[in-house]
């Protein structure tokens, strides 16, 4: 093999890499918090909500789940301005990730809600709780606990999928890797390093989510 590996460019371009890591982390933090909130709201609407709201939410969820993320991103960034809705690429990236995670987590959380035993809802009614109070105090946390591993996986998938925001010049980690490759022509080294960083970020995110799960659901049954 004649290829000469060279990682010298790391010394020159590490500010771009650090900025890329920062933007990616910001994207997934905002995306996860607001996306899961949107998912909980939509799951409630589909499982327990009023009849007129169900088709609206179903349309949104099915539209997002059955189209590619990149197309949704391009539509928000390149398409919406022609309808008068202009926004920068970081805003467009954030909104696209929130909408995307919202739809997928809606389905995951709805499965958790529907697996809740009917007795829980009846217990809430017998204690004179409104349906919303029943949902908030009795149903939502055990539902999340039931599907927490699947939700964590989806959040990590969306974090890794955030790499496509480089297509609209949002300066995330993939954009940094592409930029370094186009300046130093060291494609293998640039993408190898960014792959390692994504791997580290994914492992870190999984640990953080596991910790959050431990905090939110203290009475989780031992394995």
């Amino acid at each position: 093999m004649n290829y000469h590996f060279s990682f010298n460019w790391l010394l020159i371009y590490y500010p771009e890499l650090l900025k890329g890591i920062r933007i990616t982390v910001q994207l997934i933090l905002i995306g996860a918090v607001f996306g899961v909130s949107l998912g909980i709201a939509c799951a409630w609407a589909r499982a327990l909500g009023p009849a007129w709201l169900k088709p609206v939410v179903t349309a949104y969820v099915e539209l997002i789940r059955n189209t590619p993320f990149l197309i949704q991103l391009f539509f928000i960034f390149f398409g919406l301005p022609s309808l008068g809705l202009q926004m920068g690429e970081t805003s467009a990236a954030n909104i696209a990730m929130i909408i995307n995670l919202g739809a997928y987590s809606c389905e995951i959380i709805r499965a958790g809600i529907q697996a809740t035993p009917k007795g829980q809802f009846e217990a809430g009614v017998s204690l004179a709780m409104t349906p919303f109070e029943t949902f908030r105090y009795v149903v939502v946390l055990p539902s999340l606990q039931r599907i927490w591993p699947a939700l964590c996986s989806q959040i990590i998938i969306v974090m890794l999928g955030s790499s496509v925001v480089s297509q609209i010049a949002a300066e995330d980690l993939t954009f940094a890797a592409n930029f370094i490759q186009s300046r130093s022509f060291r494609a293998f080294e640039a993408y190898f390093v960014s792959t390692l960083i994504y791997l580290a970020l994914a492992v870190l995110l999984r640990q953080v989510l596991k910790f959050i799960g431990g905090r939110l659901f203290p009475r989780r049954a031992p394995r």
Partner: protein
Amino acid sequence: MNRKAFFAGMIVALILMVPVTTSTMAFADTLADVAARGTIRVAVPQDFPPFGSVGTDMAPQGYDIDMANLIAGKLGVKAELVPVTSANRIPYLQTNKVDLVISSLGKNAEREAVIDFTAAYAPFFNGVFAPASVTAKTAADLAGKTIGVTRGAIEDLELTKIAPADTVIKRYEDNNGTISAFLSGQVEIVATGNVVAAAILAKNPPKRPELKFLIKNSPCYIGLNKNDPGLAAKVNEIIAAAKKDGSLNAIAQKWLHTDVPADL
């Protein structure tokens, strides 16, 4: 055939090849050949609009094709268009498969060593484009503005060098991304080649990109074989006449939607 006859045949073939390989030292008179044949063979691109592409009727069309037809018309012969790629256009010329290369050919030292160039016939430059409402006469005027480029292109590398520190440069993955960003209003200024700017103009946008200043100028020249002064002089004469009587401008307007620059 026995071995002796085989080797004798090979040596005769080698001897016969010598006049062919040494004949290129003589002065060529392509003009006379062309006049005798009644056609001029021109290498043109077929994968690089607007200079050369294939239309829906499978006929070649483009700036270079129009140029080839113009030259052939002025010489009084028919143009035989030979499709070539960037990789084989100069070898085709050197092996006498074509008489002229009209294929958005840029001039550089390596090519000057092996072929000759005529005068420039088409503008090909990288520059900063923006609508008429934006003023940006030099790189310093870009301070504080947002400008879109295609990542890794010459414009990207040059602009990064000359732009002020507070210019925001947005790098898109390919020319289509840069064009989409301009057309959707995400960036007001783009740094790109005049071919890409022509592609934007062809879509009739509400904000038309105009050239503000040049980053790098590399006009297109016609390539022909060395030691062919007759053909070179005649083609230069045709190009000069076409510039003067406006026929070159008509081709530029048709394919690039701009006039021929005065300093071409």
